[in-house]
């Protein structure tokens, strides 16, 4: 086989030699395609596997950890929660609308493949600087795509994040997360149960969509390649997905399915290999039986990434009933093969075996690398000059920076109340939905602090996990488990590899401390174009619960005269990275001081205080303190005609970041009870002010309430148009 062909398939010559030696024969082009797909970073995690193994993935509530289509946790009674996050970065750069839409479609399939009904989605999206037309085009397309798919299929979007930073100029990130509800005794896995079971194809016909998409997703691609990669765009059909979802859920609840696997990246190849490997069995598939939209070669069928397709295994005797149900939903259905005892993957086309490979070589012998990595140098300590900073300018800086503004332009394009169970929509610190027909609620948040992680990957990742944790705590949601999406640049650069290794380590430390195991996730590497690596962006999606929906906190101010208290510990001015960056005090990444070490025990202690006070109904509203400090947190809490007045010795402190930082609103009559409770717990607090009507006052200086609120709410749309 010629070298060029091998390299085109994203395999190294060494990797190819391993296959060649094992098989002791030449490969068919179809077989090469299979290795290309399966030994790709996206499928076999060859760079990250060694490190991912170190993550805590289990505790008493984990029903299913990483390794299935989604993780599942136990929510008591017969309720389980399935969730996962997935990236669609490169497809969304090439064709933002369809790329992001199919990202949502893919993650929803991961959820309902497990037998779970999706009940919420979240998204985490990052773009370059808004000054370019390209960024505006990407932002519009991505938000439209995410909205279009989710709205149409009818799953509420309950939150996410949307940030802008120059390293994403040519490499925007689109991560979509989905959460589903499953009855614990009706969870479906990809492992087939019996030899001789029929392999059936369910859903849209196969076309030329996204062929090579999987290997494309792991290429370092340059501007020039863009055109060549274009034809392989996948188009989503959310209407089909809605039918597929209802059809599959009906099949599963009728007990007609043994196992199920969605056809995601690398389509029929990865789903069938996965089935064989999970069940320690073989598969035989006749490619001539695959429903096609247009004539395709065997190679193309194997690698097509057409959307809205499923592979299932059923007992022969159920064939007729399955067909009937799918007919009602107008879904294509075909028996294409069967489960064998050969432990081989066999694909036939035109009466010829085009692929005949032992499962072992594809899965167990997949490469695993221990790549070289560097640990960042220790940073020097530097004192910044704050003497020229004016409070008014600081506020203007926030109100002209997209990252601080109200994101309703984004989430108003998403349906967040469909399904009728939404309790907190986007715009609050975490999204919250009710488990249908119960009093239980699920809260979720997606977060990342790329700047922190570039400064110190290990500590920065702890802060990122803590941010999600605080987002949930602020609503009185008990954090339970994590999904994560590790978006990094090229791991072939030992500096980047170091960011990957250390942030995984930070994730591990924080997850163990918070008892929030990692139950699912995704890795997206090589996020760089033209030599510009993105900032490390390992996104955390955290899920939590409260068994009683009446105990949930709001993030919005409630009543004039109520007191405002601050919990937690302020980071010093010299060590508040976003303050330094966004107030243009530190202009270069080398200038920043190291992060202060995040005390996770302290995080837990303060969090427990918030939870206890919430249960005592002493907290009227609560918000966490993150980028933009107390000031930004207070802005987000404004509601109706309510504002605030605060006193603080150094107003710059209002913009500093925090560890375990929360703003809480307390009724005057509860103040004593709350403060003595906090004192007893050894939790420091500061009473900084109170809620007033239509005003913003800092140290008796009055600001124009309507002007600030107007800018906060409307500047986003102005800036991006």
């Amino acid at each position: 086989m010629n070298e060029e062909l091998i390299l085109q398939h994203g395999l190294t010559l060494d990797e190819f030699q391993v296959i060649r030696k094992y098989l002791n024969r030449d490969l068919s082009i179809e077989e090469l395609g299979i290795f290309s797909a399966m030994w790709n970073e996206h499928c076999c995690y060859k760079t990250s596997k060694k490190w991912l193994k170190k993550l805590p993935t289990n505790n008493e509530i984990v029903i299913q950890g990483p390794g299935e289509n989604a993780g599942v946790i136990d929510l008591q009674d017969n309720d389980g929660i399935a969730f996962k996050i997935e990236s669609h970065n490169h497809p969304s750069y090439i064709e933002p609308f369809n790329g992001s839409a199919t990202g949502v479609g893919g993650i929803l399939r991961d959820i309902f493949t497990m037998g779970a009904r999706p009940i919420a989605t979240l998204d985490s999206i990052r773009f370059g600087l808004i000054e370019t037309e390209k960024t505006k085009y990407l932002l519009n397309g991505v938000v439209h795509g995410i909205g279009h798919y989710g709205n149409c299929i009818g799953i509420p979007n309950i939150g996410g994040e949307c940030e802008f930073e120059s390293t994403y100029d040519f490499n925007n990130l689109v991560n979509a997360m989905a959460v589903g509800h499953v009855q614990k005794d009706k969870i479906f896995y990809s492992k087939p149960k019996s030899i001789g079971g029929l392999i059936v194809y369910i859903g849209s016909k196969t076309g030329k969509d996204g062929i090579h998409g999987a290997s494309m997703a792991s290429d370092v691609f340059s501007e020039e390649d863009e055109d060549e990669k274009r034809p392989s765009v996948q188009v989503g059909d959310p209407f089909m997905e809605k039918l597929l979802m209802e059809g599959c859920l009906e099949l599963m609840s009728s007990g007609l399915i043994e196992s199920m696997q969605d056809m995601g990246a690398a389509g029929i190849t990865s789903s069938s290999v996965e089935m064989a490997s999970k069940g320690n069995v073989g598969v035989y598939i006749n490619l001539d039986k695959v429903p096609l939209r247009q004539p395709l070669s065997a190679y193309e069928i194997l690698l097509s990434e057409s959307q809205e397709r499923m592979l299932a295994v059923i007992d022969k005797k159920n064939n007729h009933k399955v067909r009937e149900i799918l007919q009602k939903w107008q879904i294509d259905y075909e028996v294409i093969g069967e489960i064998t005892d050969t432990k081989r993957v066999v694909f036939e086309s035109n009466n010829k075996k085009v692929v005949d490979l032992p499962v072992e070589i594809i899965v167990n012998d997949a490469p695993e690398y221990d790549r070289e990595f560097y640990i960042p140098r220790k940073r020097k300590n530097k004192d910044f000059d704050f003497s020229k900073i004016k409070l008014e300018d600081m506020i203007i800086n926030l109100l002209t920076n997209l990252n601080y503004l109200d994101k309703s332009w984004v989430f108003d394009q998403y349906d967040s109340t469909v399904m009728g169970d939404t309790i907190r929509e986007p715009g609050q610190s975490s999204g919250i939905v009710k488990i249908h027909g119960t009093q239980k609620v699920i809260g979720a948040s997606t977060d990342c602090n790329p700047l922190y992680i570039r400064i110190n990957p290990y500590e920065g990742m702890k802060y990122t996990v803590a941010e999600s944790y605080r987002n949930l705590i602020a609503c009185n949601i008990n954090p339970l488990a994590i999904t994560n999406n590790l978006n990094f640049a090229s791991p072939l650069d030992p500096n980047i590899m170091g960011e990957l290794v250390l942030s995984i380590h930070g994730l591990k430390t924080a997850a163990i401390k918070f008892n929030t195991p990692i139950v699912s996730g995704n890795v997206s590497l090589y996020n760089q174009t033209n030599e510009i690596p993105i900032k490390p962006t390992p996104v955390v999606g955290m899920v939590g619960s409260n068994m009683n929906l009446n105990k949930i906190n709001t993030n919005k101010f409630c009543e004039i005269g109520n007191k405002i208290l601050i919990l937690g510990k302020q980071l010093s001015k010299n060590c508040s990275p976003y303050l330094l960056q966004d107030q243009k005090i530190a202009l270069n990444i080398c200038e920043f001081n190291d992060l202060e070490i995040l005390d996770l025990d302290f995080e837990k202690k303060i969090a427990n205080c918030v939870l206890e006070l919430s249960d005592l109904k002493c907290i009227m509203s609560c918000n966490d303190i993150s980028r933009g400090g107390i000031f930004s947190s207070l802005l987000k809490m404004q509601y109706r005609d309510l504002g605030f007045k605060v006193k603080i010795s150094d107003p710059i402190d209002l913009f500093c970041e925090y560890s375990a930082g929360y703003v809480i609103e307390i009724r005057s009559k509860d103040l004593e009870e709350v403060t003595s409770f906090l004192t007893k717990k050894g939790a420091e607090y500061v009473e900084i002010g109170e809620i007033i009507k239509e005003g913003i006052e800092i140290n008796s200086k009055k600001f124009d309430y309507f002007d600030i609120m107007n800018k906060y709410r409307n500047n986003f749309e102005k800036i991006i148009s």
Partner: protein
Amino acid sequence: MSFKSAVITFPGSNCDRDALCYLKDLTKGEVHNIWHEETSLPKVDLVILPGGFSFGDYLRSGAMASKSKIIDEVVKHANDNRYLLGICNGFQILTEIGLLEGALIRNKKLKFLGKNCFIKKKFKNNFNLSIKDNQILQIPVAHNEGNFYCDSETLNLLKNNEQIAFEYCKGEFSNTEENINGSLEAIAGITNKKKNVLGMMPHPERAYSDFHQSQDGRLIIESLIS
């Protein structure tokens, strides 16, 4: 006598379950769910055509659903002077069937709108009896094509016959625009001439339970039952 109702499900409907819960919780009566390919409809007091993206909203929202088998029965139900309520996609279907005048075209800003909106009643009918004049209701909208349009002749008819049931308005504290989607005269819902068929873009079935942000959606069912 207990209040009976039914919700029709089309392929792509996604508010059918919400509508069923809304009816079950508020009417306490019998509630049926009818698949679009059925050819008969039980005798009920109210039929809801729910929101969603019937047939993907391909071609035009509501167009293909309006040709479904069950529609003949739905029309009969309406001709029988019984209540028919189309919410969001259901409203679009009703205009496509021709039971209601006008059409719903793309929102003026060309973007999907998913947020709380505020409406008040314009002319009295059986669907809004329990709502006070000038009472502002907060109810979510979620649509791409909610921009009501009809020609001026039809508009005059709608006014003269007092067929305009709801119009968008400004909420007390919100910065929401008065006419969120650009509808003609800020129309949010209309009835037929006999006033037993109502189509509206806002979703009352997402604003009735204690945990919802507003309970104003109850008023519609309460109006019908009282």
